[in-house]
Structure formats: structure tokens, C-alpha cells
């Protein structure tokens, strides 16, 4: 069963990389957001796998899963605010392009 | 390959098939029942031509729907267009797999069944939303947007209502709600929070399944038929199918929450197993061996299931009654009701439950953990 745990960490790495790539290349802010969610989930997967790996009768830890829960909470909060920001942007500009949100530079 | 079809797997397959059959039949006859009941309320006759008292009407409807010409909009997103009704229906069916209908009569015993229940009800919402969007047409699109907002708004209240029995039993397993109604655990003070919780749950489940008075996603006067305007034939029939089964599932949940599940505890006497005393012995006695477990509608299973079904139909009748009685809400009324009234009310309820359980204590059922443990074994042992 060790295979599955180790493989899950590899899978987590892959998912994280895919998410990173998505963030790099996309223009639509919502998609970028989704890619970030994917990255967070990759981290969660790794945490759960590590927890499974380290769990033993002597050390009945569940910290990995609890961290994963907290990450989900943070993700939820982030989504709420992020989507609200995007909606606010949509209301003011007909087109939403991440490259157009650069007031700070101008 | 042989070891794949272990008795447990066969058991599951047989039970699943049985459940799907029963549910489909139930759906068919629920449409009939609803039409008759509505016509009774509205002082007219309803379907009474096909067969005695129109009893064969559902069959005829089914044949008609299946044979109708299928039309797909040209601009539709084809994959999603086909996926949407399937998603709705399968989510509803899966929901029912989580709900025990009698003692030992359930497809599964998941330790976190209630959360799954909530998740599946939002999965069904995916179907409705995608149906509207994939049609690429104005009315379905508006319908699906309405569905989306409505489901998100009312899901909160739905989940929070379920927290009340969870807090009392200390378990996320629906089976353990029954423990609450065993006479040794029951306390009439639970009703103080359980009754309002169940009623609020009923209200939000009306909204969640899109039934009157919250059937805004398919409001004829404004958006024709809402998200399924562009659907026809069997794909159309899958939406009402999913809706009805979801309704049954929600009613079953209310039964588990408030009406004592499959128990028959009248306070002074517990009639739960009264029928089991005279039916035949355990399934093994019938000579079916281990496979006999597949249809364990005997003994305790039989009496409890019957109890449950009676209560279930009481609830379903209530749903229909509400449909016949209440007018439809306006959209802003719906939102205001959901956010400003229902949600605060459920939060207050949760506080009350916390206080109540602190005073009289939660259910101390030894079975709470053993049931969870059984479920854990299923998930854990399967690995080896």
C-alpha cells in the first residue's frame, strides 16, 4: 500500500505543476483562480498522503488532514473575495483580461 | 475474476437493482398520485381513463415519452446537453443509496452519509445549471441562473438544519438518527429543537428540489419552462424523474429527522419490532445461504421498512398538499426569505440545540460508534 501513498505525492506534484502552468498562460481571471484552486488541492493531496504515511499505532496523528481542512477554509475565503473582486471588475469593464488590471503600473 | 463477485458484491448489485426498480416504479406512480391529488384539491377528476381509475396512466405516459421525437438545438453544447439530465438523475438515485429504509435495510452505511447527502444534492444542481447553459438559449439560461442562485442560497439552511440531529446524536451517520428514537434514548425535550429543524428542512428542501412554492427555475409565466425548455422526449423525462426522487429522498430525510425513522416509538410503548415477531425467521433459514442477505425484508427488516414507508408517504403527501395550496413566490421574495429569515432561524436553532444538549446531554448510544466502525471496516478492509 506504500505504492499508493508515494504515488499520490507524485500525482500531487504533477497537479501542482499543471496548475502553475495554467496560472502562467491564462488571461481569464476566473480560470487563473481555478488553477490556483488546483494547486491548493495538490497541496492537500500531498498532506493527506503524508498523513497516511506517518500514521501509526504509536503516533496516531491526523495533523495532515487537519491542515488540509484549514487550507480548504482558506481557499473558500479566497474564492469568496476573489470572485467578488472579479464580479466587481466585470461590472465596470465589458471585457475581463488579466492584463488590463494594471492600474498600479499606470 | 471470480473473487470480484463475492457475496457482498452480489448483495450490493442485487440491492441496487432492486432499489432502482422500486424507485422508478415509485416515480411513475407518484406522478399519477400527484395528478390525482391535485385534481382532488382543485375540484376536478384527473387521469382516470387508462385502466381502472387511470392506474395504467403512468405506463402509457412512459411509452409515449420514450417514443417521442428527439430534438437537439443546433447551437447546443452537445456533450453537456446530454450530460446534464444524466447528472441530475444519477445524483438523485445515489442520494437514495445513503438512506436506510429499515433496520438493516440500506444500500450502504457510510460514516459521513449526511455530508454525502448534501454533496449529492448540489451535484444534482450541476445538472440543472448545465442543462440551462448547454441549451444556448435565453430562457433556459435564465432558468439555470435562477437555479444556481436558489440552490446555493438554500443549501446552507438545509445543511444547518441537519446539524440539529447531528448534534443530538453525535454522529454523521443517518442510521444513528434512529438510535435517538429508541425508547431508551428518547427524550421529549428533543422535540423542542427537532420539530422546528425538520420543518425548516422541509421548507428548504422544497427550494432545493425546485418545487412549489419555490419552483422559480421553471416558472412558466416568465421563462417558459426554465432550464428544460429545450429538452424533449426521454431526456426531458429524466428531469421530473430526478426531481421526484429527490423529493422522496428529502422526505425520507425528514422522516429520519423528526418522525422517528423506521422506529415506532410512541413514548409509552415501542412498537418498532412488533411485526417482526410473527414473520419468518432469519434469511439463512430460507436456504439462500449468504446470498439471502440480499432480500432481508423479513423479521425486523420487514416491520421497520413498512413503518418507514408509511411515514414516507405521509411526508410526500405533505409535499403535494403544499403544491396544491401555496402560490409561487417572487424571486426577490425567495432570496429575502432564504437569507434573512431561514438562515438566521437555523442559526438560532443550532444555538438552542447546543444549549439543550448541554443540559440533557446527547444520545449515548453504544451503537453510534459500532455503526461507524462497521463502515470504517468497509472502507479500510477493502484495501487488502
Amino acid at each position: 500500500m506504500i505504492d499508493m501513498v508515494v504515488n499520490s505525492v507524485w500525482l500531487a506534484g504533477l497537479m501542482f505543476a499543471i496548475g502553475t502552468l495554467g496560472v502562467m498562460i491564462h488571461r481569464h481571471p476566473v480560470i487563473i483562480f481555478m488553477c490556483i484552486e488546483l494547486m491548493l488541492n495538490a497541496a492537500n493531496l500531498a498532506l493527506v498522503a503524508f498523513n497516511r504515511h506517518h500514521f501509526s499505532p504509536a503516533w496516531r496523528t491526523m495533523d495532515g488532514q487537519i491542515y488540509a481542512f484549514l487550507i480548504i477554509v482558506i481557499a473558500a475565503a479566497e474564492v469568496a473575495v476573489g470572485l467578488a473582486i472579479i464580479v466587481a471588475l466585470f461590472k465596470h469593464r465589458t471585457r475581463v483580461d488579466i492584463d488590463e488590471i494594471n492600474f498600479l503600473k499606470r | 475474476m471470480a473473487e470480484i463477485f463475492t457475496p457482498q458484491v452480489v448483495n450490493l448489485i442485487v440491492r441496487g437493482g432492486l432499489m432502482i426498480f422500486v424507485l422508478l416504479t415509485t416515480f411513475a406512480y407518484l406522478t399519477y398520485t400527484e395528478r390525482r391529488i391535485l385534481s382532488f384539491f382543485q375540484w376536478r377528476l384527473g387521469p382516470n381513463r387508462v385502466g381502472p381509475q387511470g392506474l395504467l396512466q403512468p405506463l402509457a405516459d412512459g411509452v409515449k415519452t420514450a417514443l417521442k421525437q428527439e430534438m437537439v438545438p443546433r447551437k447546443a453544447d452537445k456533450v453537456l446537453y446530454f450530460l446534464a439530465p444524466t447528472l441530475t438523475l444519477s445524483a438523485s438515485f445515489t442520494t437514495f443509496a445513503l438512506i436506510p429504509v429499515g433496520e438493516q435495510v440500506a444500500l450502504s452505511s457510510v460514516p459521513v452519509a449526511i455530508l454525502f447527502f448534501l454533496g449529492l444534492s448540489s451535484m444534482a444542481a450541476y445538472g440543472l445549471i448545465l442543462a440551462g447553459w448547454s441549451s444556448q438559449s435565453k430562457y433556459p439560461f435564465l432558468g439555470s441562473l435562477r437555479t444556481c442562485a436558489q440552490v446555493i442560497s438554500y443549501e446552507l439552511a438545509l445543511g444547518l438544519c441537519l446539524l440539529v440531529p447531528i448534534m443530538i446524536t453525535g454522529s454523521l451517520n443517518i442510521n444513528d438518527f434512529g438510535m435517538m428514537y429508541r425508547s431508551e434514548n428518547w427524550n421529549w425535550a428533543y422535540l423542542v429543537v427537532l420539530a422546528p429543524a425538520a420543518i425548516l428542512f422541509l421548507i428548504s428542501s422544497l427550494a432545493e428540489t425546485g418545487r412549489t412554492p419555490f419552483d422559480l427555475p421553471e416558472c412558466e409565466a416568465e421563462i417558459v419552462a426554465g432550464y428544460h425548455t429545450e429538452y424533449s422526449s426521454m431526456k426531458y423525462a429524466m428531469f421530473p424523474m430526478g426531481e421526484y426522487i429527490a423529493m422522496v429522498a428529502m422526505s425520507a430525510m425528514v422522516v429520519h429527522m423528526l418522525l422517528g425513522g423506521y422506529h415506532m416509538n410512541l413514548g409509552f410503548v415501542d412498537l418498532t419490532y412488533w411485526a417482526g415477531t410473527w414473520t419468518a425467521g432469519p434469511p439463512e433459514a430460507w436456504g439462500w445461504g449468504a446470498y439471502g442477505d440480499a432480500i432481508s425484508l423479513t423479521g425486523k427488516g420487514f416491520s421497520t421498512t413498512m413503518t418507514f414507508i408509511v411515514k414516507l408517504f405521509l411526508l410526500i403527501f405533505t409535499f403535494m398538499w403544499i403544491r396544491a395550496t401555496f402560490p409561487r413566490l417572487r424571486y426577490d421574495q425567495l432570496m429575502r426569505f432564504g437569507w434573512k429569515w431561514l438562515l438566521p432561524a437555523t442559526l438560532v436553532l443550532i444555538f438552542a440545540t447546543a444549549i439543550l444538549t448541554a443540559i440533557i446531554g446527547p444520545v449515548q448510544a453504544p451503537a453510534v460508534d459500532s455503526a461507524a466502525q462497521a463502515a470504517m471496516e468497509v472502507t479500510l478492509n477493502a484495501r487488502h
Partner: protein
Amino acid sequence: MFGYAWLMIAFPLIGAAINGFLGKKINNKKISGWLGTAMLAGSFATALAVFFDYQSRGLQGAERFVEVPGWTWIAIQGMSERYLHIDFALLIDPLSVTMMLFITGISMLIHMYSTEYMSHDEGLPRFFTYLNLFVAMMLILILGANIPMMFVGWEGVGLCSYLLIGFWYRNMENAKCGMKAFITNRVGDFGILIGLFMIFQQFDAYFRMHGMTEASALDFKDILLNANAVLSVMSPADALFIALFLFLGACGKSAQFPLHIWLPDAMAGPTPVSALIHAATMVTSGVYMVTRLNPVFSANETSGFIVACIGAGTAFMAATIALTQNDIKKVLAYSTVSQLGYMFLACGVGAYWVAIFHVITHAFFKACLFLGSGSVIHGMHEEQDTRHMGGLAKYMPITYWTFVISTFAIAGIFPLAGFFSKDEILWQVAIWDSQFKGAASFLYWLALFTALMTAFYMGRVTWKTFLGKPRWTAEFKKKHHHPHESHLPMTIPLMVLATMAVISGAILFTPGWMTGGEPREPLAHFLDVSAGGPEGLMLYAGGTGAMDAQIHGEHAEPAHGEDAGHGAEEAQGDGHAAHHEPFMLLGGSVTSTEMIMAFGSVLIALIMLILSNRRYTGDYDPKKKAAQKAFGPLYAFSYNKWYIDEIYNNILVRPGVWLSSKAWQIFDVRLIDGIVNGVAKVLGALGELIRPVQTGFVRNYMLYLLAGAVMFMLINMWSYLLGGAS
């Protein structure tokens, strides 16, 4: 046991909270004022209950120190197994019981007085907030079971004093007076802090060495119980320095010579404040502290002598200044300083209970005098200068008679309170048996001369104010025609205090020559363990038998003293009669000597009072400036308060101001600002350099972020792989 004693502190705190937070909401001066008074009444009732409870229990020896547990305040885990554990607890012992009785009682009366006195003031709720808070702090100071608690109270009363001196803060002068008091007290606090630290260090070391893990070097009970043992092994220099540093703190709080300058200025506050804080209670906390830690002062005769010298010197100096002041409150303020000097004189010669005795009697008559002066000021519509008074007796009879009684009491006229306490101090100085015996006789004459002056200046201010021709200003006459007597809430406290000024001395102490045998001294007996000096401490150190053996030597029988109280009586009694060999007047016995001395001082006081009466009634006119002409430079020296303020100003204040302004110009402006601005400039330049990197495109930032992350990962992997290889 005495858990309800907390109520005593709780009442004024509640009053302060209500008046402080809701005072503006209530917006009713009557309610605010009487609420504060009622809280103090509750406090006083609690104090009485504690007193009777304490008496009825008949506690003996070490039991007389009762700790009332509160809650854990500070708990620090130390390096070793012992750790610092400080409770917020009360210590009920004879000293604290005595103090709390008269503090709550007089506070109650003064609160009551203030409801009328301050009734025209807008800030009345604020006033009662401070006043209640002050009482709570004072009670914490005297009831605190350990040094940190006492320090909390010490600073708390300082704060309240500051707030109340500057109560009318819109006037810059008042605010300055408050600051002066605060800053002067800081000097004293420096001393007391060092003294307390040294006590902690010495006692903690002793406890550690002897493995007394239960004892705490901050707890009064533990300190006092082990004081004799610790002090016997402590080096004399340490003991001297502890005593001197502590005394510096006491000087600050109790306005003794180097640090006395703030008290006369503190008269800027409302008169009830002067009565309560700057005459009756707070200023005596120095005496309290010295008495509380009396073993430390008794340990070394040098320290006692220095305390006595400072006390007598201050008493003399303040009395000379008081002779020439014209402001009625200023005279009383210097009189307070002078009387505090007497108390320290008593402390210095080891007669702690006499010091406390004088604290009590002084609290009564000085509070009465201040309140009387307040009544006069009230009646004269904010006129404080005695040159513009005169002839008030006719219009303010109650104030006049209470004032006269208190004047007689402070002058030491038989049989008023001041006579007993002051004479006992003089007697104790006279019989002080130490290596400084010769100098002590000088102190005696100094104190006696001060008593003479006291009678004169008190008579001066009294007659000047109340008798003679009216010298009211034309403006006053035009506006108000004549002064008026105050209302009941003001006169009742006056009458009560005057009564106490008459009887309190005789109740608490009667000297031997009056009883015809052993002196009757209930206060001394009551205070045995707390203010008995080393002998008092022995009451619990080794049981009564051991103590008797120590004192009597020849007849050491355990059966002799059944109880410690009796033993204490023996100790005190012998202190009078047998064991000291004081100077004898006319070759007579001790009793006759004491009697003759007492009559002598009463005679002197009477003569002075009559003299001043002659001088300041009849055709007295301040415009003639007769005294000024007669005494010339001496008058100026006294009138200008020995030029001490000017000396401080030139030696300390001006150089300080100059130094700070230089420090500001050099360090703050050039160095610190220069560094800050320089950093900002450098960073700004750097920012200009890096600016092009900021494209404003989020995806670019993402790329940078990723590149950085990859770089870190590479470095990490590099070191990891290297580490794995080796």
C-alpha cells in the same frame, strides 16, 4: 477567614467605576456625591466588622498575621525548583487594621463634606471617581500582603494625588503643581524600589540558603517572621542601605526634608483633597511603610538616628516656615510637614507604635483643620489669604469652635489628642537608649522648640482668621456683605472630627503619671507584633517564654506569660520604667520627670497661644508689617521657605533643561533623524533602480514568483544532494 475584607476595597472601586463610566450619564451631582459617600460608608462598616472580628478571635503570636487569599497574580517559573509566586492577597494584622479603620472613617467624612463643598463644580463625578479610586488604592497599599501589592497601592495613591492636585487642570499653575508632586515622588520611588529590591535579594538569598522553599521574599508575613534571623546575618552596611533607600521613598511620599517641596504646592487641589490625601492619609503611608518594615530600621542604630534627625530637622524647618505664611492652607501644609517630621522622629527612635499613634491623632485634628479652612474658604468665596480675613467667629461659629479645638489639639493642650501623642514622642526621644544618646537630647530640645513654634503659628492662623477686626476686601464686602456658615454636610464632619480630636488621644493612651502606676496603652498592646520593633517580633519567634527570657533575664519561667499579649505589655511597660535610664529632671523618679516634662510643654504651648492671641487680635493690621521690620532677614528667610525651591531650580532644573535641549538638538535632530532620512533616501534610490521590473502584468509577477521558487528549490536540492552524497 477574613474573605469579606475584600469588600473594603471593592466598595470604593465600584463607586469609582460607576462615577467614572456613568457619571456623565447620571448627570446628577447629588447622586454622584452621595453614591461615593455611601460606598465609603460600606467600606467603613466592613473595616469595623474586620476590626471586631479580629479582636474577638483573640489571635496570638504569629497567628496575628492573617493572610486573606485572593488570586494568583504573578507566577514565574524560575531556573531552579523555587519560583516566584505572588498572590493578590490581603494581610490583616494589627497595623493594617489600625490604618484601615481611620482611613475609611475619615475618608467617609471627607466624602460627605465634599458633596457640599464641590456641589458647585462641574467635574463633581470626576472628583468622586478620583477620590474613591484613591481610597481603594490606599487600602491596597496598607492591606497588601506583599511588597508588589504595596507598591501598586503606593503608585496608585501617587497617581490619584496627581490627578486631584491638578483637578482644576485648566489653570496651568495647578497642573504644574500636580507635575511637581509627581516628579518629586518619582525621586522617592527610585529609592523605595532599590530598597525593596535589596530586601528581596537579601531575604531570597537567605531563604534559598536555608531551603525554605515555602517562604517568599516578597511576602510581608514571611519577611517579618524571619526578619530577626535574616537581619542577624546580614552585613550592617546592607541593613543601613536598605533602611536609607526605603527612607528616601518614605521622604518622597511623606514630604520629608529633601523632598518636602511638593506638599505645600499640592494645596492647589480642592480643600477636601488636601484634608484627605495631603494631611490625613496618603502622606502617612511613608510612616506606614517604615512601621511595616520596622525590623529593617531597628536593625541598625545609625539608620534610626538618620531617620530621627531628618524627622526632627524637617519638623523644625517646616515650623519656621509656617510662622510667616499668609495663605491659610499653606500654613496648614507646612504644619503637616512638621507633624510628619514628628512621626519620623518617633520612628527613628524605635517607637513605632507612637508614630502610628501620632498618625491617628494627627489625622483627626489635621483633617478637622483642613476641612475648617475649607469651610472658611467656602464661606469667604474662594479667599485664602488670612490677611483679608478676621472676625469670622461671629459668622461661622461651628467652624470657629471646631477649628479652635483642633488648634488646641495640635498645640498639645491637655487633655486633647495632640497632647498625648506629641508628648509621648518627646518622651520616647528623651528615653532613647542608643549610641547616639547625646545627640538624641539635642533632638529632644529641637522637637520641644518645634512644639513651641507649632503652638504659635497655629494660634496665629486661628486668631488671624477668626478674631480681630474684619479685614475683608472691598470687593468681597460689596458682593457678599459677610461670610456665611456652611451647611450641615460640611459641619457634621467638622464636629465629628473635632470630637475625635478631643477624645482619641486619651482613649488610645494614658501615660503612667496619670494612672498613677503602669501606663494604660491599648494601642501599643494591639500593635505588639506589627510595631513593636525587634522585641515585638520575638513574640512569635520563639514563644513568649523565650522573649521573656530575653527581656527579663533573671526570671525566665515559661509559666510567667500565658499569652503573647501579656508579654507585649511587659515589654512595653518595661520600656517605660525599668530598663532605660533616661535623664532625670530635678533628680526625681521617672514618673515625676515625665509629668514635669508634660506640664512644661503644655505651659509653653499655652503661653504661645496666648501670645499669638495678643499679637493678632485687637488692633492688628498686616499692612504695618511689624514682624517683617522686626526680624528682617530671618523673616525673609522663613517667608521664602528657606529658598529651597530656588536652590533646586538653579542646581537641578535649569541644567536639566539645558541638557535635554542639547540632547534633542544633537541626538534627535542630527543623528536619529539623519539615519531615518538617510535610510529613506537610499531606499528611494534603490526603488527607482528596480522600478522597470514592475510591468503591471500579473502574469509577469507570477513568472518572477515561480522563477524565485524554482531557484530556491534548486539550491535546496543542491545542498540536499550534496549532503546525501557525503
